[in-house]
């Protein structure tokens, strides 16, 4: 049987100011397919799907559903045309119940009563049909991320979606939750639903999709049947040149212990205990990877190690001296003076002042030192020369020290931070989410730099929610779950399944 295109885009264009996010996009999606759209961050995938969903309007071009041109001015029209979207950041009201979230906008009656009960019944039936297992009366804030995503899927189905768009659905899930999601998606496919999967992860494309469209810089650069292509080929299309997907690294040459963390507890700003009785050592010449799903205490742990947050109990020792305990506390500047470098998790909030220019961001933390300032006066010329040199060394593009930092791409912003932190030859490197929102080309560069540091004998702590990143870089892996360290593995023949179980808190 020849499948019919259910959704067709013809010459869609969209610009935001000077940036053309989508250039002349034409795309056909067949009924009943799982169609992948892959591309790096900023390739225009999400924008394109937001146009289909009516969140943005295209500057020009047509959208056809079942061979009929439809005009989508708002999500309202797209929902009526049978399009549902599961956004990367869930569109749920946290203090509402599941049912309230789902009926929002489709209540059917002014005063709740009869229709509400009907809605609950049909939702229960939908849950059964697709094996979704959701408690309809639960409040969203009580549900795990995986369940929230199911609520989003259920919401789309309840609103009559025939085409379901998922935007980076696996970013926040454990590998086991990903399996569950894929099961649900396959059963949707069996029921003739069409699924569009937006992702930057090649694995997901290979496992799940029938067809794949590759986007780069706002354009479609290729379309393949998934079974006729390979990961390497797709990666090359995404980046525009061939890339190394796996990193070669030597055996670690492990030296003395640098950081000793003993039984620390750390509270967050709301006084909630986020790190519970955590102990580990970090040694010279190794990369210790801390894996875990977002929000399991990694952020607070990293903040405690870098002097942003004092521990509530226990102690942290650096070179044998206590730097954080109930009574002793070294701040980030004091730690920096002891050769501790920090690449923070949230680049734009903690790593940079995005409204400042690149050269200013390149000297933060060292701005009070020679040669950048003399008796409290900034030395412009020295800063400029330093910036020029460092931007060349780290291949920051464009090499313009006076360009405002927010105008650099995610990858180049990260390179600015990395170069600032590494140029003084630190002994310890604490890195959080080094490649979040960074394109593949820059990922390769950043990973290589981290490995280089390790080979130079630097002690590296890597916190990342990207399991692949941990597996390819770390020498030792510990997993954080609910504030505790739940397992330690030497990174030889460890599988993502094993780590995944630990990430879900299953330790046996």
């Amino acid at each position: 049987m020849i499948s019919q295109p259910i959704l067709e885009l013809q010459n869609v264009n969209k610009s935001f100011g000077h940036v053309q996010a989508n250039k002349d996009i034409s795309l056909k999606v067949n009924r009943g397919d799982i169609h992948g759209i892959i591309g790096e961050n900023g390739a225009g995938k999400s924008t394109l799907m937001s146009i289909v969903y009516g969140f943005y309007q295209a500057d020009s071009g047509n959208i056809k559903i079942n061979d009929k041109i439809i005009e989508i001015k708002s999500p309202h029209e797209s929902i009526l045309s049978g399009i549902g979207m599961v956004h990367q950041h869930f569109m749920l009201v946290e203090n509402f119940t599941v049912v309230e979230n789902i009926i929002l906008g489709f209540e059917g009656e002014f005063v709740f009563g009869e229709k509400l009960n009907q809605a609950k019944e049909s939702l229960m039936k939908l849950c059964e049909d697709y094996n979704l297992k959701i408690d309809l009366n639960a409040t969203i804030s009580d549900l795990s991320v995986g369940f929230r995503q199911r609520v989003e899927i259920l919401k789309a189905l309840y609103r009559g979606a025939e085409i379901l768009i998922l935007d980076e659905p696996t970013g926040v899930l454990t590998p086991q939750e990903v399996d569950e999601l894929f099961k649900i998606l396959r059963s949707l496919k069996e029921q003739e639903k069409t699924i569009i999967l937006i992702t930057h992860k090649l694995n997901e494309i290979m496992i799940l999709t029938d067809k794949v469209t590759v986007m780069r810089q706002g354009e479609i650069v290729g379309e393949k049947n998934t079974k006729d292509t390979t990961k390497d080929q797709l990666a090359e299309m995404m980046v525009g040149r061939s890339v190394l997907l796996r990193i070669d690294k030597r055996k670690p040459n492990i030296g003395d212990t640098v950081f000793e963390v003993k039984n620390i507890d750390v509270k967050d700003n709301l006084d909630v205990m986020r790190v519970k009785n955590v102990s580990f050592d970090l040694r010279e010449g190794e990369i210790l990877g801390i894996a875990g799903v977002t929000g399991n205490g990694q952020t607070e742990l990293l903040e405690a190690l870098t002097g942003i947050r004092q521990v509530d109990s226990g102690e942290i020792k650096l070179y044998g001296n206590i730097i954080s305990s109930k009574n002793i506390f070294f701040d980030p500047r004091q730690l920096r003076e002891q050769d501790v470098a920090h690449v923070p998790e949230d680049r734009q909030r903690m790593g940079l002042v995005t409204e400042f220019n690149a050269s200013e961001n390149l000297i933060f933390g060292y701005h009070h030192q020679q040669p950048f300032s003399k008796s409290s006066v900034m030395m412009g010329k020295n800063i400029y020369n330093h910036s020029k040199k460092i931007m060349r060394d780290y291949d920051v593009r464009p090499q313009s020290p006076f360009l405002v930092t927010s105008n650099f791409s995610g990858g180049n912003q990260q390179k600015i931070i990395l170069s600032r932190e590494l140029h003084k030859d630190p002994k310890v490197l604490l890195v959080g989410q080094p490649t979040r929102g960074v394109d593949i080309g820059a990922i390769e560069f950043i990973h290589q730099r981290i490995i280089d540091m390790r080979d130079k004998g630097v002690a590296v702590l890597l916190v990342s929610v990207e399991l692949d990143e941990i597996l390819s870089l770390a020498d030792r892996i510990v997993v954080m779950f609910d504030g505790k360290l739940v397992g330690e593995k030497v990174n030889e023949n460890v599988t993502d399944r094993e780590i995944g179980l630990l990430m879900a808190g299953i330790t046996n």
Partner: protein
Amino acid sequence: MEISADIISLVSATLRISTPLVFAAMAGLFAERSGVIDFGLEGKMLAAAFVAASGAHIFGSEWYGLGLAIVCCVALSMLHGFASVTHKGDQVVSCVAINILMIGLTTALAAAWFGQQGLTPTLTDDRRFFEITLPFADAVSGVPLLGPIYSEIISGHYIFVYIAYIFVPCVYWVVFKTRFGLRLRAVGENPSAVDTAGISVELMRYKALAVNGVLVAFAGAYLSTAINANFFREMSAGRGYLALAALIFGKWHPKTALIACLLFGFADALQIRLQGVPIPGIGLIPVQFIQAIPYVLTVVLLAGFVGKAIAPGAIGQPYIKER
């Protein structure tokens, strides 16, 4: 007998004094639940008081005055919406602008129209509201306990007082039991969720502000055409801010906000009652200290007890689609 008469008049005064706070707090609830800060209750109340008094004087009926006050407050709410919803301006700044504008404008217009120093002419009896004596109030006043409660506390208030306390359960019902309420709360918590459900965030916020305007108009009209018979300069005297404090103290919930309003009303009633009365063991307290009671109470309650109040998630944030 003396003490129980005191209590009865205190309770009755509490109900009377709380009334404008209740209207304004319910008005604020609609705006803030939709994600729009309404710091401008004070200015709108003042505007409503002025318009109601001058409207009643010019057109010869207190009801015209109330109607015009509603039109005026809805218009001011729309102005607030235009600045802070459509043009995504800072909500607090927009509110402060309305408050300052209204202080000046009401006084200036009163002077220009009526030639009196910031006053409107005193309303004649056919142009203002009067207390309503409920049926059988006199008949049952002799019944012990229940009699005085009915005839002294429940009966004998302005119609506004009854409307205010009937409004509270209505507000609860609208906010928690209807489609409008669901969308209202959603738009204040997570506007993106509302937008992706195909509902206009801006329209929802404008609707909420319209309701807000209607409700706050009652508060203003009550001040100038019921408990007073004219408008005078800055007659709202901070009640708008007090109502907002009650709303926050009441955690944006009609029931608890009502309790907070009653508490502030009671403090004020007590303050009036205590003026000039020597306190046993202390003697006569200067009147200024007594008058400060409601405001001290506000500060103490807000600082001490509202620590855990969780505001609507998106309050104060103009809705901008993310790229």
